[in-house]
């Protein structure tokens, strides 16, 4: 327990102090996206890494949050904070309702169903032009305000987004180390045995699905207010796959791994700007290589690799002596 607390404190400290080391609007802006992606990846990881249920439609919840917040606060002049709260609750409720039929499905079927759901939502973003602005997007979304403070610069947005991320990570770590988190992992490992122990697998899966959707919706709201503009391509199937890649690369069932995955997959394309079109090839290759050679993700794979290398050295040393 104490170990978890220290890990979290170090993580939070790094986040808070990062702007002292990294500066410049461009980098701050990229780090804002790392934050939003971390929230999304952590949300998906709760579902996929802990409860073992795949979703290929999580970009839809992200998009619903973004469009919901954008439309309510712009077209209908709602207070943005109120809009964010209402949208998060509505998306969570929606996911809860759809969760019952959808999570009855397993494995490949679940993947296909969530994928279908994601595409339907994406099509609605594109086609419901009167409300969403259609393919050309929805603009003029106001920045968030807190009293006299307007979140209109990259540095301010950095602290805005990352305070949400820190909250989200803390809650997720708490949850993961509680009876509920254990029940998720039990469902993942041996569902029938978990049910025999009194774990209501069906309800818990739906609950985590709803929670995960809710976190995505909040990330979406933040995204809308930070960008002040949203358009359908940010919420398509490719984004769902990108999220999946982050979770898999970081490590299934590791909250900090999701941060690592989000960091890597957000920074890399920025550094690899010159090979712009190659990024899709890169994602595909990365997904395959990771699944085959490092199924535990970086958080488990790197230490394993390290152990192997040092193990080899020791063996060699032993042979010498």
């Amino acid at each position: 327990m104490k170990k978890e607390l220290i890990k979290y404190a170090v993580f939070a400290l790094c986040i808070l102090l990062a702007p002292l080391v990294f500066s410049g609007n461009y980098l701050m802006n990229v780090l804002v996206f790392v934050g939003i992606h971390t929230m999304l990846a952590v949300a998906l990881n709760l579902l996929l890494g802990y409860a073992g249920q795949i979703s290929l439609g999580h970009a839809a919840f992200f998009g619903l949050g973004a469009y919901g917040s954008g439309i309510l606060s712009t077209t209908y002049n709602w207070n943005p904070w109120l809009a964010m709260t209402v949208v998060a609750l509505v998306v969570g409720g929606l996911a809860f309702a759809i969760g019952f039929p959808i999570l009855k499905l397993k494995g490949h079927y679940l993947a296909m169903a969530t994928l279908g759901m994601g595409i339907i939502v994406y099509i609605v973003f594109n086609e419901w032009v009167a409300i969403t602005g259609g393919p050309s997007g929805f603009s003029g979304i106001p920045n968030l305000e807190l009293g006299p403070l307007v979140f209109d610069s990259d540095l301010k947005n950095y602290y805005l987004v990352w305070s949400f991320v820190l909250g989200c990570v803390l809650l997720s770590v708490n949850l993961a180390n509680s009876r509920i988190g254990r029940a998720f992992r039990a469902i993942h490992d041996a569902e029938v045995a978990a049910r025999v122990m009194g774990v209501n697998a069906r309800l818990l899966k739906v609950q985590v699905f709803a929670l995960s959707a809710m976190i995505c919706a909040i990330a979406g709201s933040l995204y809308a207010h930070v960008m002040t503009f949203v358009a359908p391509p940010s919420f398509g199937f490719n984004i769902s796959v990108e999220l999946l890649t982050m979770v898999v690369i970081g490590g299934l069932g590791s909250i900090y791994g999701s941060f690592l995955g989000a960091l890597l997959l957000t920074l890399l394309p920025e550094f690899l700007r010159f090979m712009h079109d190659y990024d899709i090839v890169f994602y595909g290759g990365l997904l395959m290589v990771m699944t085959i050679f490092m199924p535990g993700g970086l958080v488990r794979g790197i230490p394993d690799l390290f152990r192997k290398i040092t193990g080899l050295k020791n063996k060699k040393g032993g042979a010498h002596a």
Partner: protein
Amino acid sequence: MLELQGITQIFGGVTALNDVSFSIHADQITGVIGPNGAGKTTLFNIVTGIYQQTRGQVIFEGSDISGIPVERLAAKGMVRTFQNIELFGQMTVLENVMVGLHSKSKSGLFACSFKAPWAITEERRIREEAHEWLRFVGIEQLADVQASNLPFGKGRMLEIARAMACKPRLILMDEPAAGLNSQETVGLAELIRKIRDLGVTVVLVEHDMELVMDICDRIVVLNLGQKLAEGTPREIQDNPEVIAAYLGDDE
């Protein structure tokens, strides 16, 4: 305690169980035996809510539990173990037993994420009780080992500890001695007696005749989907029909 009334199970035209009735008495160890294909495992899965029987009723402590979802049985006081031990492999030994306490705790999703004071107290209690059950089966020193790394015999002990953590009044064990060496089987027999002495009713489906005859207070014999006999170990050993069934007189 537990009463089976006219249980019939038909799988796609094949009758796996035909009108089986018997009752299990409280505070006893009851063994269910029978040659391969007798329907023991099917019966077991029906009682524990994993299969839904075609006909008949399962009465547990006076109420009909047929059709009740598996996950509600633990709270009612019934729990089982599996023939091929079903552990939560990616979790530690201690965490496995902590899951066993799931039905005896109730902090929800939000209380857990926000670490509500009662959730913290409850978590502490879960941890302490889990340790106690590990002590009870004698594998406390393995608390922090990942469950998938346990040797089979220890895995069996862990599964029993996890089941006992549900504080059941009835525990059903599906071939608990399968895969154990003779020394481990002796330990198992002792443990099962210890469980009965806590006031927990035990039912086991078992192939190991020596174990069954040694520890069971009563035995029910199934053959070809029907009840063949029931009685004390002595009565069963002397029953000519049972002997014939085991020797396979029709072959």
